């Protein structure tokens, strides 16, 4: 218990220290840098929460049984969407600073003038608010209903969730596409890519999976989640493995088509990211987000080895941070990394971990009211 308290006060301390750094960034390092960092962490929190919510919805959509015993974990991670909403509301202040489409000069820009209404501050904000409202709806139905089922033990929730899941998939696609197009590719509004939303989805799902895997292993270390075995871990590992390939497939397909066509307004996105120090980051992204986890998880034994899974899950979360950094930070020019970025990382990581620790202690560790829990515990490969 004392160790727990120690960890907790350490996290609070790190968050407070990071908070000071965040303030100092605003005052000393320039608004553009402050907002770029802010958007990075808003997108990271949001994609992590949404990715976790997607895992929950996926289980209901396909009536998966194996994942019932671990479902409470992504449900808890999905609640990160709640603190992500105020972070996102504050991020709306960044729109006139960082997003060229919302600045007054856009009216005279030959390309942006045609998209002026879509990129304008009011409509941008309205879309973000709609996305937030849809997320809260998804959380209320899928996570709220599941938590309530712990006490009511009412199987009606399963039917409701199964009916809601297909609708949520449409909602999810809309939300993640809006967030990806507005907040990420909105930084370079002359550039466009149809597949960009899917690319961000792949990263979001992977980060949700990695966080779920880590949390399952964390709870297993504390002798909680009794009955969750290597078979369950194998499925999580298999998903992680499969979606590293999916991410690189989408990422490379987008790159290759633009590289081939060589149209100036498309290829500029990669021109920036393949020049100077960004080139190193691009290559390491391919290594860390695809090559390394692919070969780390390729064998059957690795997918159920807790040690290996923990390493790969940390790696995937780190790679997702790098991925989003790679999408956002070229807007500032050359790669920035020093005390402002570290302060933001401390502040937000501390906050996220505090939130998740709180969530992990709340209520039951498994959906005990779910009639399929037993079947899920008996799952074997």
């Amino acid at each position, binding site marked *: 218990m004392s160790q727990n308290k120690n960890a907790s006060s350490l996290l609070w301390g790190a968050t407070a220290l990071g908070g000071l750094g965040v303030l100092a960034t605003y005052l000393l390092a320039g608004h553009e840098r402050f907002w770029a960092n802010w958007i990075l962490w808003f997108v990271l929190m949001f994609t992590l929460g949404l990715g976790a919510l997607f895992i929950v919805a996926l289980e209901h959509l396909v009536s998966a049984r194996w994942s019932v015993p671990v479902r409470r974990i992504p449900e808890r991670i999905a609640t990160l969407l709640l603190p992500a909403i105020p972070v996102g509301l504050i991020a709306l202040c960044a729109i006139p600073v960082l997003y060229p489409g919302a600045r007054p000069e856009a009216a005279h820009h030959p390309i942006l003038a045609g998209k002026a209404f879509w990129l304008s501050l009011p409509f941008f904000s309205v879309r973000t608010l709609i996305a937030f409202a849809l997320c809260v709806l998804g959380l209320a139905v899928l996570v709220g209903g599941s938590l309530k089922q712990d006490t009511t033990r009412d199987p009606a929730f399963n039917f409701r969730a199964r009916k809601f899941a297909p609708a949520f998939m449409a909602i999810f696609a809309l939300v993640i596409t809006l967030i990806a197009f507005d907040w990420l590719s909105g930084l370079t509004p002359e550039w466009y890519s149809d597949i960009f939303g899917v690319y961000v989805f792949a990263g979001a799902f992977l980060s949700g999976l990695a966080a779920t895997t880590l949390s399952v292993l964390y709870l297993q270390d504390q002798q909680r989640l009794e009955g969750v075995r290597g078979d369950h871990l194998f499925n999580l590992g298999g998903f992680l493995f499969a979606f590293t390939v999916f991410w690189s497939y989408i990422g490379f397909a987008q790159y*290759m088509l633009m590289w081939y066509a060589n149209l100036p307004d498309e290829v500029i996105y990669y021109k920036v990211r393949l020049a100077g120090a960004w080139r190193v980051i691009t290559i390491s992204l391919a290594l860390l987000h695809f090559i390394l986890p692919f070969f780390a998880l390729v064998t059957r034994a690795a997918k159920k080895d807790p040690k290996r899974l923990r390493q790969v899950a940390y790696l995937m979360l780190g790679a997702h941070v790098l991925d989003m950094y790679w999408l956002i930070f070229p807007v500032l020019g050359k790669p920035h990394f020093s005390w402002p970025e570290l302060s933001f990382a401390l502040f937000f990581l501390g906050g996220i971990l505090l939130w998740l620790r709180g969530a992990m202690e709340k209520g039951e560790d498994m959906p005990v009211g779910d009639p399929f829990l037993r079947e899920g515990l008996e799952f*074997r490969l």
Partner: protein
Amino acid sequence: MSETMPASERSYAVLGIFDTPDALMQAIPKVRASMLGAVEAYTPYPIHGIDDALGLRKSPLGGMVLVMGILGALTAFGFQYWISAVDYPIITGGKGAGSWEAFIPIMFEVTVLFATFTAGLGMLFLLNKLPFFGHPVLSSKAMSSITRDRYALALEAEDESFDSGAALRALQAAGALEVEVLPAPDRSPFLTSDFILRVLGGIFAACVVSGLAMYFATKWFPLLKPMVYMQDQPRLNAQKPSGFFKDRHGMQRPVAGTVARGHLPTATGTQDAAAALVNPLPRTKEIFAVGRKAYANRCEVCHGALGNGAGSLTAAYGGKPANLQAQQFRDYPDGKIYWAIVNGKNAMPSQAADLTDAQRWAVVHYVRALQRAQNAKDEDLKVATP
């Protein structure tokens, strides 16, 4: 009794039949502990945990698939790199020779191809040793119930010292409801290397025989033509000799001073001699349209849309096409322009192969119109009366 047991009395295995998967699973460690032979289970459906209980080795298939997949990727990369960067380096679409980005889709496909073929064929032929002539267990009396609702455990003979009596007792002690001794088949049911060699040898021999037969058949009995009439007609063929003319050429030059039917006189002599030719085409809208189109297709890239020698290719080649608006060319008779189209001039190649007689003369009309348009006189401003 002879000293060696006849083959039929040696046994392949002893089968013990159980009626629940649990009974089978409980029996496996006991039978394995007896160390009497290899333990194998036959069940109507996969049973969870049976691999671990039987102590099966990890399948080597995954490793084979990984190696072949990587080999596939390298093969595809190597082929494409060799073709596009070494053997015939060519720049397509502005991409340098050996652009790896373009190779990735093919590499992906070939990786999948190699990996799936290895997985499928490796499982069937290498690991499961298909095809075989009939597994000995298939001939057991219990086989029909094993495929339905019984679970069999087999103690299989590993060498000559296999004691079927002891195996029988071990299985019974482990709780088998029925036991059955399977006699060893008189020869291996699996494809032995000997058999495979004989099959491959047979195929090779058949290839050699048919190849030699084909070679000598075509050599000794030359090809007979079934229908000679159309192939060997008495007619003049292009580029072929003929006995009809004195010089034994199938193709003859046109007789000097003549024009073939349906053709216009053409310019074969010098440009000055061609000055006498007269444009046979009338100046109608249709003819101008033909000339304009032909000019746009064949002439404009160099001579320019206005005929002033500033075409879109001029800069790229660094040449200086004739400025048709120059006084020299405005003074040219029609025939000299026509001659240049037919024979080419300086760096300009002949257009004879690409433009028909009528098109050439139409271009001449069009060039005249271009020259007139750039050097209009006052009288040209008068509206033509219909």
